[in-house]
């Protein structure tokens, strides 16, 4: 249960946050700031983060979407209605 939750956690991380956390885990383990048992848990999390980063990188679609301005205007109007 806890594990699935953790994994969900990771899959929601942005690439930037994942890389940041990964670097900090590696740094902490390298500094010897983490006891043995924890370092194994952290290692596991580090590996999951790496996998997550790689998944993000593989998701390249090379697609260009368009933001329609009209949608914006309709929205603005709807937003303005209460007043």
């Amino acid at each position, binding site marked *: 249960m806890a594990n699935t939750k953790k994994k969900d956690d990771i899959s929601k991380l*942005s*690439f*930037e946050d994942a*890389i940041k956390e*990964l*670097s900090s*885990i*590696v740094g902490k*383990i*390298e500094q010897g700031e983490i006891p*043995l*048992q924890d*370092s*194994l848990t952290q*290692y*596991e999390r*580090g*590996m999951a983060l*790496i996998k997550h*980063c*790689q998944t*993000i*990188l*593989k*998701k*390249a*679609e*090379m*697609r*260009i*979407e*368009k*933001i329609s*301005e009209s949608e*914006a205007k309709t*929205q*603005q109007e709807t937003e303005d209605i209460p007043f």
Partner: protein
Amino acid sequence: MGNFALIISSDMQNRAKIYTVSQVNSLIKEVLENNLPSRLTVTGEVTNWTIARSGHAYFDLKDENALLPCVCWRSSLSKIKFEPENGLAVIAKGHIEVYSPHGKYQFYADSMQPAGIGALQLAFEQMVKRLREQGLFDDAHKKPLPQYPQRIGILTSESGAAVHDITDSIHNRWPPARLFLYPVPVQGEGAAEQIAVAIRDINKRNKELKLDVLIVGRGGGSLEDLWAFNEEVLARAIFDSKIPIISAVGHEIDTTIADLVADARASTPTKAGVVAVPDMQEVLENIENLNKRLTSQLSFVLYSAEQQSDELSIRLENSVKHLLADTRNRLYAVAEQIRKIEPHRLLAMKTVGLNNLHNRADLLVRNILNNSQKQLMGVEKQLPEMMKEMLIKKRWRMSLSFQKVMGIKPRQVISQRIVELSNLRNRTSLGIGVVLNKQRMRLTGIENRLAGLNPKAVLKRGYSITINKKTGSLVRCPKDVQIGELLNTELADEKYIESKVTKK
């Protein structure tokens, strides 16, 4: 000229004619305006520049010798890109009119251009100066760009080449980026306003759009073509944006207001990718590097845990050795003491003293033996337990981690470590066992030797101890007893016989 001559000649004819002020001014107006070109181009230095509340500008143009009063109507003023100011040399186009109510002639300028540099260039310089003074270009206001943007908004013309330059330059470096094009006009009347509105619109909707960074740009062109990117309305929108903005306008050499106010600048649309996104190859290398560090670090952690457990078991072994050596030494010391007490001297001692000594020696030896035995048994019992427990715990942790890590990469390293660790466990418990056995055997030897040294052991060799039953003292010579008295004699194995003195 002909008209003028006509008026003078008719004036001479009608000497008595009296004019009203209005008539005079009207005459002057007519004469002046009819005899001057309908349009004039005047160059001079602006002075006394004032914009009235009505929005019309009143000023003078001057040179070294003369001053010409000028007016610029609000409607004309709005078409002038730069801001005229005192001391500025200009070329103005317009016409001369006489303003009859004041009896004053004025130059009505409908267009103006700075003399020397172009109007747009001047306007640009003036805007840079003004916005810089207002702090719009300050580094303190520059927002940091995201390191790994995933959603990038692009504001440019849908039809220009710039949109492809920008998207290609991003996708070539960083394929995972999702690009969102917000089409806007990039030149012509109202372009700046529309780009500004688009920037504000995106900011307002960014909870749903989730854009990490915006790129605003267009391809190269003349200063006029790029002008939208020099307008204040766009500069303000860029400055106000909560989302970081990268400008990518024109060629390398073009610098626009948008470039100065944006959080980062790409010199051309094709350079947008380099500024906006990281290089995928480098990022992959970085991840691979982190992966390597993580894995090697884990092996290192396991290795040092082993080393620690090695050290611990050596320390345990040593402390057991010390304990045993200590016990052995104490036993030797006691044995030595006891050996020094010779059996026949003991026999010669007083019964009480002997008994006391016996008892004390006995007790001492027994205590020492008991204690040693207990200690050893305790050590024997506890140490392997402790070791076992520790090793089991370690092994359990290791195998738990092993299972977890099995699914991943460095399983070879770990399994090798675990084999080594269980070897270590075997070696350690074997080592302790050998030490214990050796010490136990030694102890039995000492025990046997001690038993041989028991003072009462001499009784086994045929000696006996005789005591006067009445006095209870040791019988050492005939005067210690009387004829007829009873004697108690101790033989081997705590056997006693009683006898009577019949002769001495």
